[in-house]
């Protein structure tokens, strides 16, 4: 078994990025959620980069002796992951822009089921909501 070694400072950085990312994910503003995803993505990619071991020479054949190379695989994986996170961030950005255009704000709204259950908590709650002209019940609109 290979003992995973990791620089303490880097471990703390990864931990900090995860903490900040998850904290931001729990916010109501979509913009903060998006930044949370970005920060979390950075944390993950940094972790992926770190698992290849301590820094070493660039793994290009002929540029240095092979035993001084860094492990190229995590770098390739991190590169792919960076591209994917980047693409999805762009998509999320476009989606929150769309949400902003449609709703006029970028707050995440209440969950439908939550609202329905909250409303049903009252003693006089109706069994079935009246459905509107579009076939959706009142609280789905």
């Amino acid at each position, binding site marked *: *078994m*290979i003992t*995973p070694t*990791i620089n303490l400072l880097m471990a703390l950085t990864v931990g900090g990025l995860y903490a900040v990312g998850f904290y931001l*994910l729990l916010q109501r503003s*979509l913009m903060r*959620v998006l930044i949370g*995803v970005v920060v*979390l*993505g950075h944390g*993950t*990619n940094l*972790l*992926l980069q*770190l*698992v*290849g071991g301590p820094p070493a020479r660039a793994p290009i054949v002929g540029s240095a002796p092979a035993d001084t190379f860094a*492990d190229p*695989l*995590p770098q390739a*994986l991190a590169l*792919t*992951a960076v591209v*994917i*996170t980047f*693409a*999805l961030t762009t*998509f*999320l950005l476009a*989606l*929150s822009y*769309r*949400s902003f255009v*449609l*709703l006029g704000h970028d707050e*995440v*709204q209440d*969950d*439908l*089921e939550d609202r329905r259950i909250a409303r049903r908590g009252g003693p006089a709650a109706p069994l*079935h*909501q009246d*459905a509107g*002209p*579009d*076939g*959706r*019940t009142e609280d*789905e*609109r």
Partner: protein
Amino acid sequence: MTALAALPVLLPILGAALAVVVSTSVLAQRILALTTLGSMVVVAAVLLVRADRSGPVVIALGGWAPPVGIALVADRLAALLLLVSTLVALAVLGYAISQRIADYGRRMASSTFYPTYLVLSAGVSLAYLSGDLFTLFVSFEIMLTASYVLLTRRTSVQTIRAGMTYVIVSLLSSLLFLTAVAMVYAATATVNLADLSERVDALPPGLRTVLALMFVVVFGIKAAMVPLHFWLPDSYPNAPAPVTALFAGLLTKVSFYAMVRTQTLLFPHDRPWTLMLWLAVATMLVGALGALAQNDLNRLLSFLLVSHIGFMLFGLAVFDARGLSGATLYAAHHITVLATLFLVGGLITRRTGTVALDRMGGLAATSPALAVLFAIPALTLAGLPPTAGFVAKLQLLQAGAGAGVGPTAVAAVVIAASFLTLFALTKVWVRAFWGRARPTVEDPDPHDELEVGTARTPWPMYAATAGLVAVSLAIAVFAGPLSAMTGRAGEDLIARVPYRVAVLGDADR
């Protein structure tokens, strides 16, 4: 000949690329999409026959042998699910095409639907075939990115929130997946599944448990396992019927497949897996009870989808060849039947103009064809004999009863959840198909994507749905040979050696 295993991935990507190039001609796009998926079905069938007769079909991309290179592996489990998935994707595509012809006519609607659909199929195929964790991650990203686009293509004020929830939850699970991959690499210095299955055994038990649980969480979110299911009933009903049918049929099952693949290959158990038994119980009951409370047809079906993920998790939790065989058969049946039910839901909405059950009625008299199309998959999902659902469920129950006290108790929950499913579907039947006929609800927005509240439904939409019903019936008719094959697949999964030998090629493993 082994290049065959790469075709289910490369064909749809090529099809998508060409569909983008010819994006000005919607007819060319339709033909391209149908041809691509049709040939994928053929390739998948050939792969299944080969994998069953002469062991897994393995291809090393670029000639780089695993574990260094990327390998695509089609064993019995992967090839069977691939075949069923591509069949369902083809039928749903037929439904979507005919709906779009009916709603738009020759008018150019949008040039992004068919390419995105094909990319999603490519992602699904790659997920089934990938032989290493990172390719699995990439395939999930391909699949999910396409699904984000399909789900949010026509967002409105009502649906944008659900779309956001879906995208953010999926993104979060993807990042967790990546974290898990990084941790696995840190511990073992490989991501190849066959290689990992040897190296993980040497890890300390605590570390193994952490890694196993990370994969349970990651794939649990994506497979809508309770308590990580909350996003599904919220987001799926908001898409057009074909898209929901495709998602309901394929996406969660791909995640379940990934869970089976990683857990059996990397973290095997000798006894039934207690944690997964509990999760299966929670999933079955929460899903079924949630379905009972719904008035919206699509939400009800979404909760049933969650509930029946629990049946498959039960098969995995039993963790022997029979349980996995039952879970595989159940997954194949579930892919077909859920897609069918959502398509029928789309047809019902098209006919009545509403998704609210209390505004429908008398459909059995006004539209008998719809009643037949709903009744058969509904009985199949509830698992009444002699349908495919019954055959699969019987295998699960037998496996559970033969595996000790815990699984036997959970088998009783399986029966209870089946009755709850039947009850929920009976509710749909009584409200929508019996009773007096209700007036059709007017289309609230006649100019939007979906035309509802019309009797004008082209026959290919019915034909595509009927085709899926036929697939489901075929699973019941050929239950004997199929369950024999899933039995062999289950034995392969438990033994682990055939997979390793096929990928790494060493006889002494």
